[in-house]
């Protein structure tokens, strides 16, 4: 609340900030989560909802380990969150399929599986040929030559997940403030002060998880979050009776029955718009995978902005000039949510960063800078 002094201020009510806030609150901290108003860049609203682990972090072992840790934590995390809030966040782990349409694509998946083994990744990745796929998913189209499969991949409703984290935080005594976009941050008399649209909020520690807004806020406390927007468009269909039980890398069916078809990667500045050419490309690919999807009605085209760092990996750091001020950002707010909630949040409540994320400081981008 404005007036009170909190143990921890979390700037940013998206999935990353909400997960940290929930986790810190469960660890006993008095947390204030600051969110913007009804219309904000909310990546969660346009998120595809995949917890996608096969191939993640290939060539970057620390990132792979952190992601897989998150993957293995999801079951515990989802159970705790549902248990606390009573909100079915739609988490299911049927295993994920990346469909291939050529032998070259299959070779690519094979290399991913081999490299993952070489890197010591704690994940099973199977390669299915067309007959294997048809055994399990007879609905696929004639061009599908095979797929890679991992039983660790899962999916969730990013929207219900966000709601559950925010309601869970409040149920545990934490504070959620919407309409509290942060204009400025400063340190004052041993405390951090966030100047918000609803007045100043004070805390002993602070974490900046403000997505694209973090680029401007972080330097005010000696942190650096060089992020840029990358637009992703998805196509959302009407409800369909259960049809595809697995998770697909570009197509999945939600708990309610809608199909999500995605996702594009575009440089479009801060525009959250959509365009028919991109939607057409996404839809054509989905129909190649599942011809029967052609008859399904589309109800929404959606564009949202991923928060991209220069190397695509997360940034987690504590300020050297302002100890107790932290920053966290990544474009995998769903996949990593379990780790943010169960590992990062409690650690920040204790005023430290977990060992697992020690290599994700932003100074990796300033190598040889002077």
């Amino acid at each position, binding site marked *: 609340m404005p007036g009170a002094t909190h143990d921890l201020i979390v700037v940013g009510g998206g999935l990353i900030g909400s997960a940290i806030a929930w986790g810190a609150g469960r660890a006993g901290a008095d947390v204030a989560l600051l969110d913007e108003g009804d219309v904000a860049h909310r990546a969660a609203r346009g998120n595809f909802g995949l917890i996608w682990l096969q191939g993640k972090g290939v060539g970057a072992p620390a990132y792979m380990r952190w992601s897989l840790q998150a993957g293995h934590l999801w079951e515990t995390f989802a159970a705790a969150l549902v248990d606390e809030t009573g909100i079915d966040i739609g988490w299911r782990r049927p295993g994920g399929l990346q469909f291939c349409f050529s032998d070259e694509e299959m070779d690519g998946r094979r290399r991913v599986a081999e490299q993952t083994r070489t890197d010591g990744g704690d994940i099973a990745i199977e390669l299915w040929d067309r007959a294997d796929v048809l055994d399990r998913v007879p609905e696929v189209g004639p061009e599908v030559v095979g797929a890679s499969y991992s039983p660790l991949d899962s999916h969730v409703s990013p929207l219900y997940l966000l709601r559950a984290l925010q309601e869970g935080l409040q149920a545990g005594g934490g504070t959620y403030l919407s309409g509290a976009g942060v204009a400025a941050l400063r340190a004052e008399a041993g405390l951090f002060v966030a100047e918000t649209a609803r007045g100043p909020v004070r805390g002993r520690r602070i974490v900046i998880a403000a997505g694209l807004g973090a680029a401007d806020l972080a330097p005010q406390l000696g942190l650096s979050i060089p992020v840029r927007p990358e637009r992703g468009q998805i196509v959302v269909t009407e*409800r*369909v*009776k259960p*049809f595809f039980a697995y998770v697909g890398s570009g197509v999945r069916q939600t708990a309610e*029955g809608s199909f999500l078809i995605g996702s594009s990667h575009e440089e479009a500045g801060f525009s959250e718009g959509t365009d028919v050419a991109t939607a057409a490309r996404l839809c054509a690919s989905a129909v190649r995978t599942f*011809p*029967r999807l052609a*008859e*399904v009605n589309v109800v929404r085209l959606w564009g949202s902005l991923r928060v991209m760092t220069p190397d695509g990996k997360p940034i987690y750091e504590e300020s050297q000039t302002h100890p107790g001020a932290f920053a966290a950002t990544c474009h995998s707010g769903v996949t990593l949510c379990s780790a943010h909630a169960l590992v990062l949040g409690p650690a920040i409540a204790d005023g430290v960063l977990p060992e697992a994320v020690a290599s994700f400081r932003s100074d990796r981008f300033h190598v040889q800078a002077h």
Partner: protein
Amino acid sequence: MFRRIEASAGTAGTLTFEERPVAFRAGDNVAAALLAAGIARFRDSPVDAAPRAPYCMMGVCFECLVEIDGRQNQQACLIPARTGMVIRRQRGARDLADRAP
């Protein structure tokens, strides 16, 4: 539940709803033809299976969804009735399984 103000005007054709023949008149859309024939339940809500039927008759509410000639979730109030149309109740969400491709 409905009647024609002109009892005399002849029928323009016949379609079927759930196997039952339904005569319609010139100018009828599918929703009007079904309502005129006393059909009250057009679809089952995909959320709770409750019965639903036309509410707005002008394409806004999407309550009149039916299956027409194998195509599901069609807005009955926007589609002119045609002879031989095979119409079925829309039973909840679209079903992609076990149907002729």
